[in-house]
């Protein structure tokens, strides 16, 4: 059973890594690792919710090749991501940038957590009257 599970796990992880074809990879492992990190941060523009790294789409393949060419040419990660952002806009970034326009988006979890904490604190500090009125009573036997 354990063998089967581990076989499934191995097969699944292979499937996830399959999009990057061996012939796309760079010989230099450091550069290849950089290229993979960059492509993991970029959205495949035709598949809506997949990174360039994991997508099988043709354009994702072209982007991976382009990213690797630029890495080899000595561009920085920021330059490469900036270049693609200048062509496809923020849509190409899987993680929206933190700026004025997206402040509410980024702050939303903190706001929700804050509001929740206030509500919990208030309800603990001012318990409902009904709860108080039942204190000290013995429960009716069932």
């Amino acid at each position: 059973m354990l063998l089967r599970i581990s076989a499934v796990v191995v097969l699944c992880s292979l499937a996830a890594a399959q999009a990057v074809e061996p012939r796309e990879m760079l010989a230099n492992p450091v550069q290849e690792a950089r290229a993979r990190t960059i492509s993991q941060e970029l959205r495949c523009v035709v598949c809506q919710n997949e990174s360039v790294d994991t997508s099988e789409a043709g354009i994702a393949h072209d982007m991976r090749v382009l990213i690797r060419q630029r890495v080899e040419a000595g561009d920085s990660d920021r330059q490469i991501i900036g270049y693609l952002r200048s062509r496809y806009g923020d849509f190409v970034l899987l993680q929206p940038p933190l700026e004025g326009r997206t402040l509410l988006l980024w702050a939303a979890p903190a706001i929700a957590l804050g509001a929740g904490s206030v509500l919990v604190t208030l309800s603990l500090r001012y318990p409902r009257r009904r709860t108080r009125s039942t204190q000290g009573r013995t429960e009716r036997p069932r």
Partner: protein
Amino acid sequence: MKRFFVWMPLAIFVGLTGLLGEVLASGRDPSTIATPLMGETAPDLDIAAFNQPGRHVTGDDLRGKPQLVNFFASWCGPCAAENKLLMQMAEDQHIRIVGIAMKDDADALQGYLDKRGNPYALIGLDESGHTAIDWGVSGVPETFLVDGKGTILERHVGQLDGEEGRHLIERLKDAS
């Protein structure tokens, strides 16, 4: 306090419905990406020209008069469907259309043009697909309207229909 707890979920519901409803009513199609290149100078070109050995399609080919740049491919169905309209625009309206064949094969491209007709003044071969990425193209067909100075004035994603074609013709007239 109790009233607050009763009304709050309703207020959140109404707020969210309003927000989502507005986005839905705006008719925004999330599959079309607004191009940051609008109003900017078109990215430079330097790709081999189809059927003209030694010739390159460059940025200079997009200067002079307003024209269309059409990303297409012989393997693309909507491009074939759009070809008839492009032929009309090129022949009847004398509109200059520069074609960029994305990831195409010269033989297949020749067959496609023989069968459907060739509306293009010039065709560049984007074998790597990197020119398409440079123009922010996500798929074929995609059409750009470039003015005489090489500035992108319009961009259309997908197959052009008659009305969109007429709109582009109007814009081309305005730009010249």
